[in-house]
């Protein structure tokens, strides 16, 4: 009877260790995926910010050049 209890206890310990290893590996996988997702999102956001700022800069420079000439002439 004692031997069965020992075996069951060992088995439970083994299962819990395996579950812990599996859980830790899973958490690392999720973290890696989250990092990759964040990287892709950052890249897309950066491109959007850059494009929008560039459009505004282009039109600002063009309008400012016209104003500059007018002020310097006047």
């Amino acid at each position, binding site marked *: 009877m004692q031997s069965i209890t020992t075996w069951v206890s060992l088995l439970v310990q083994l299962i819990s260790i395996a579950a812990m290893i599996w859980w830790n590996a899973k958490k690392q996988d999720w973290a890696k995926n989250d990092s990759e997702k964040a990287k892709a999102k*950052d890249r897309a956001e950066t491109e959007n910010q850059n494009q929008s700022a560039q459009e505004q800069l282009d039109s600002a420079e063009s309008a400012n050049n016209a104003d500059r000439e007018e002020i310097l002439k006047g």
Partner: protein
Amino acid sequence: MILGCAGRLKPDQSMPATDAGYDTAEILACGKRWHGLGICSLAKTADITTLEVKVQGYYGGTVHWFSEGCGINYSEEYEGNVQIELSAATVIAKSCIISVTVSPKYTPEMRKDLAVHSFRGHLAVKLLPGGAWLGETRKLSGNWQDNLTVPVQGGTAATVVFRGCKKTYKETLPVSQQTVPVSLRKASDLGQGDLCVLDGFAITDKKQETSANVLMHIYNPAFSRLSIPKMELKKGSLIVSGEDAVSIVGLDDKYMLGSEAKFSFNEQLPHTLRLLTVKGRSVLCEYNPLATTPPPGAKGEWKCSQ
């Protein structure tokens, strides 16, 4: 003795810097080290204009360069804690913004179950025909108020024109002590997350002109900047203590894991100190030895930015 030897990265409860619109990449351009936002001017006269730009990389990973205006869009891998240079083939054909995202990979042992975030930065490059120029950067948040002091030569009044940040600003302002103070709030109409380059000039009544540009980024007010670390110099060593969230402390090319570190330190030489978190928050400090004749005198000064 090494204090920072935790062996793995530490969690940071803050929101990621990139999500908050807070730029923290370390950019080297036009002879300066910029933290997150940088600005340079280039003479328009040359047939082909190039610019040397580098970004600091940490622990190996990927750098992504992007510029709509200057036709840049590529990624490259890097190893270790190195400076990565923008391709020498990049031609600056017009004023543009160069954005860079540094994504450290770290090792699985360092990362464990932590998600890691990038460090992003933007460099505005202004092509100028010549003349006086003022270039500044601003990270702003919440109900911000800020002024730009434009230096001018001669005259009692100046016509000031600014565009580029969702607004056209035209005012005639009095010249005071050869400067014109411009309210950046009045010259722009920005909301949270907006990035823009304010482009303009001041022309005095004596027709003297100063061009000016301000690279501005409005970040989320819920974002907490990383605190300036405690620094202590003791018997030729620098002891650095950062926030608990700090994963990496680096002095020049020596990097340590943990929020505290001790480095050997020569007070007669310039140094660069970096503190980094997994959410892309960082502190960048530069040490400049003060010239003293004869020694001993004041040791030097630190300048830190968050």
